């Protein structure tokens, strides 16, 4: 029973738990999170008066170093996690009517448990949205950040608009990403429906009952597999 079996999809089942994320994906996730949080805190020092103790020449330097970390992380993820990364990203961009219906009822459902949303695959619509926000804001952060960092000396008085467009998009992306980040952390760590998912980003495994509850279209393949019997909780 304890022996893990490897499914065709590359997923594993072990002790009533199913594999959600590979080890390298998990490492990249937390490194990206660390860079993002560092960037968020040092950036918000400029945007919130009550955080102005975080604004300084030193925190600007930290912001720039963390930016390098953030910028290379997706590359490490794509190289290291290869097929897993691509399949997740592909799924994040694949939207069905069920995903839209899921989003439409997501708010009342997460407050009251009703109405039941449509069954979801490996990523539910909220997680797909999170992927899309992360990818979009990443592109915005990097391009506008490079403009602010390296193009500033070249921009003349007549080109000032370019700089301010960069600042506008950079800060707008910061608030969108920060809001999504709060929601993401809350869902993964606190909400009763989904807090079981956090284990998937720690040791890579979630319980089959959670997988069937939140991702039935994906988890159904594991039912009856060797070692997949839900463990007593």
């Amino acid at each position, binding site marked *: 029973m304890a022996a893990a079996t490897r499914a065709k999809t590359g997923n594993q089942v072990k002790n009533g738990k199913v594999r959600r994320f590979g080890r390298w994906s998990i490492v990249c996730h937390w490194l990206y999170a660390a860079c993002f949080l560092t960037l968020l805190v040092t950036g918000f020092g400029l945007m919130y008066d009550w955080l102005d103790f975080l604004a*300084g020449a030193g925190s600007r330097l930290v912001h720039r170093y963390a930016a390098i970390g953030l910028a290379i992380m997706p590359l490490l993820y794509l190289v290291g996690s290869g097929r897993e990364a691509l399949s997740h990203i592909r799924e994040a961009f694949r939207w069905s009517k069920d995903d839209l219906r899921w989003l439409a009822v997501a708010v009342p459902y997460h*407050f009251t448990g009703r109405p039941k949303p449509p*069954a979801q695959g490996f990523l539910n619509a909220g997680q797909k949205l999170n992927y899309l926000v992360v990818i979009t804001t990443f592109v915005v952060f990097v391009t506008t950040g490079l403009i602010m960092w390296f193009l500033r000396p070249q921009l003349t008085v007549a080109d000032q608009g370019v700089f301010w467009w960069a600042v506008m998009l950079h800060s707008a992306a910061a608030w969108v990403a920060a*809001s999504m980040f709060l929601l993401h952390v809350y869902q993964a760590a606190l909400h009763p429906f989904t807090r079981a998912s956090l284990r998937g980003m720690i040791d890579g495994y979630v319980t089959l009952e959670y997988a*069937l509850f939140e991702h*039935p279209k994906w988890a*159904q393949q594991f039912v009856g597999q060797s070692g997949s019997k839900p463990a007593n909780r």
Partner: protein
Amino acid sequence: MGRAAILTDPQAAARSGADVAMLTDLSECIGCKACEVACKQWNQNQAETSAFLGSYQSHPGILDNTWTVIKFVEDINESRDMSVESWQFIKTNCMHCTEAGCVTACPVDALTYGRMGTVELDVDKCIGCGYCEKGCPFGAVAVQAQVFDTDKKAGKCTLCVDRITNGLPPACVQTCPTDCIKYGSRDELIRWGRERVAKLKARGFANATLYGENELGGLHQLYVLLDSPEKYGLPVNPQVSPVLKAVRQVVYPLGKFLLGATFFGLLINFFASRNLSEPKDTDAPKATVQS
């Protein structure tokens, strides 16, 4: 007083604290750069090593430690014989705007509307981000480019606020040998400038104009120009970038609202969802699962 450069008694100006200004009468400037030297000396700014430009201009432009530069503007007749039609000098420095792009741009309030109409820079608060440089429509404040160093800060003309609040005229005014840089109450300078422009027009300078009276809510650096502002490289209708204003007035409040609403929404959800049960075997929506 005894000097044509001083229109208001500096002691009286310091006591009243009312808005003062400088007015540079470019019809009397001889481009000698004594103002540049006096500025460096009073403010203890290091000399800047720069390339020889092949002209009478000393520095390419204003830098973080070079706060006033006389720009030499040559108007060359390209259609005829490349002769110099006119040769102008303009002493450039911070304009001490009433509606200042740098103050709008500064994220740490190092730049503020200061005493006696000046725009003051608190170097200790400055973090060297360079937003002010990109917010100034005149290119009058600068931060050296930096990749990783943390010691670069903004620098700009202070209108010698440390001198004027103590009853002394600005250093450049003090030193100008032709008295073309005037110092006094802003109202007094505007009156003087209008009269001067009228005289210049009568002498055949049809395009002579007083610059800075209304630009950006009124500048505290005024100019008597012999020709139109463009001829001196001055913006005709300077504006704080509308994109910068949108960042501060639209994007920041919207962003803060979005994050705040998310935070409180989740807080409410935290209490509302406490009685919802975690997924159990029986909760799994098996009916919807494809076999």
